[in-house]
């Protein structure tokens, strides 16, 4: 199942997320559950409303179902969700 080794190629919808850094300073600290993913953005359902966060220039802290925290550089996620399965990276953000 989903682990820190395959999180870049696995499903992000349904995971809890915290935006650690973002190109737009107003987006840092956004917290919630991922409800949708497009090539360039993640849609996060937070406490009050939906937030569409660009992947590029953002750092996300994901909580995997087994409780492990993973920090991911959103720039490497800029790819359509169904194409991400074939992603092959040497240096992945931890």
């Amino acid at each position, binding site marked *: 199942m989903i682990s820190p080794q395959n999180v870049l190629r*696995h499903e992000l*919808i*349904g995971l809890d997320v915290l935006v650690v850094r973002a190109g737009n300073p107003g987006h840092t600290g956004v917290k919630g559950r991922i409800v*949708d993913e497009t090539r360039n953005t993640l849609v996060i359902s937070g406490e009050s409303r939906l937030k569409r966060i660009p992947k590029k220039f953002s750092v996300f802290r994901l909580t995997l179902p087994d409780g492990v925290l993973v920090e991911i550089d959103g720039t490497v996620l800029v790819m359509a969700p169904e194409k991400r*399965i074939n992603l092959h990276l040497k240096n992945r953000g931890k």
Partner: protein
Amino acid sequence: MAMKKSSHPNSRRIARERIAVLFQQARLFFPVNPAWSNRCVELARKIAMRQRIRIERQHRRCFCQHCYAFLVPGVNMRVRIQRGKVIVTCLHCHRQTRFPIGRTHVRGNG
């Protein structure tokens, strides 16, 4: 020469897991926002088509074969049994799908 099937040996296994996760999330999202469930179905179908794997029967039966809306029995789906067929009506597009029952499976898990 045989064509290379997938760029990574684990791609199809991950694809199967992702499809299972997506349908699980679709079920959770449905009471909150059915549009998110429909998006999950859309993504699951895209993954299946790209990786050339079948969506398992238990998942294939919970979305409309015509409009690909996520279906929940009694809410937006009508299920009838008639003359050896399960007839599923999608209350979103009002079209029907017939699933034959009691036939030996000669073509995979269809």
